């Protein structure tokens, strides 16, 4: 009975969703002429390269135009990790060994993971260092690095991560982000001023775009540390024994 009621409600929701989508034709040019700057999207497409000399417009929006929002987003990630830790963390009793939920993997998986891990980490670092030139960026690169750590955590039963190191990396990256933002204020500009340190450089150079690459590297390290921390906490839950 409840099921049919739910399906009925979902049909209503679906009907109105379809009606709404009928008003938004797929693939239509909604940003208007880029030269006119009549919409936000056109403004970004026109001004990103001349004003920030960053090739990837999405990166410019995320890190620079909406950089304050990204700072908040990174804070949300930090809060999620901290919340997860405070909800699940249990102090070990004296002499009690930390025990992972998973079983030990076979040798093939272990050796394969160890061989693959450096390359996954390298790919992640590549993705966030080139965040302003190619698709990708700090969040994506951080997620890739965390995938590598997940592989190691799954393959090795006794793979230990230094929580101190993770916390340090995370805090350092967060302070770098906020500090670069404050530096803009100190030098007389705005918060997250783009050319606070040096010039903007040429488009499509590795070192270009002012503070954007530095911030995205910091974001990448922070996301990698936080995601790895979340995975480690979730994998280290002790089964209830009492």
């Amino acid at each position: 009975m409840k099921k049919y009621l739910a399906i009925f409600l979902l049909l209503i929701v679906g009907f109105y969703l379809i009606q709404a989508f009928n008003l938004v034709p797929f693939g239509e040019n909604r940003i208007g002429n880029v030269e006119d700057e009549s919409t936000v999207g056109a403004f970004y497409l026109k001004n990103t390269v001349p004003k920030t000399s960053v090739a990837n417009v999405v990166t410019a929006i995320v890190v620079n135009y909406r950089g304050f929002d990204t700072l908040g987003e990174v804070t949300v990630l930090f809060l999620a990790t901290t919340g997860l830790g405070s909800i699940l963390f249990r102090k070990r009793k004296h002499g009690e060994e930390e025990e992972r939920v998973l079983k030990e993997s076979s040798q093939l998986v272990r050796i394969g993971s160890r061989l693959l891990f450096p390359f996954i980490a390298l790919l992640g670092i590549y993705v966030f260092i080139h965040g302003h030139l190619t698709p990708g960026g700090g969040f994506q690169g951080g997620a890739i690095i965390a995938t590598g750590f997940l592989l190691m955590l799954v393959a090795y039963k006794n793979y230990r991560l230094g929580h101190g190191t993770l916390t340090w990396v995370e805090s350092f990256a967060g302070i770098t982000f906020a500090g670069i933002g404050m530096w803009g204020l100190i030098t007389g500009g705005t918060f997250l001023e783009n050319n606070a340190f040096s010039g903007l450089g040429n488009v499509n150079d590795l070192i270009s775009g002012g503070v954007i690459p530095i911030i995205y590297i910091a974001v990448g390290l922070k996301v990698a540390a936080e995601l790895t921390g979340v995975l480690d906490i979730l994998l280290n839950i002790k089964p209830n024994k009492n």
Partner: protein
Amino acid sequence: MFGDYQNVVTMSVYGSAIALILIGLYGVLIKKHLMKIVIGLSVVDSGVNLMFVAIGYIKGGTAPIFSPSVIDKNVQMVDPVPQALVLTAIVIGFAVTAVALSLVIRLYKHHKTARIDQIKSLKW
């Protein structure tokens, strides 16, 4: 054979966004197991993200990246704003899922079950 090609593409992209949203909502409404409810929330998340990106798409547009091959060539690019918003939304979705999962684990440890119809203290 399929009528208008454009129509088919529209149907498939918007249709999968709507389908994902509805499937996720169905899971949240009907399923009793908390893990399945969290999965439902994630599915809704994916549907909404797909919807955002699909709305920002412009026919024939390329990714909004001024790489050396397209710079100064006046190429039509898709709207970058929804993509930046979705990047934020994905990260927030991850955070929400992680915290929700940890709460599920705590509930499971406390009640020895993760089915909401068997957790007695929810009833009054």
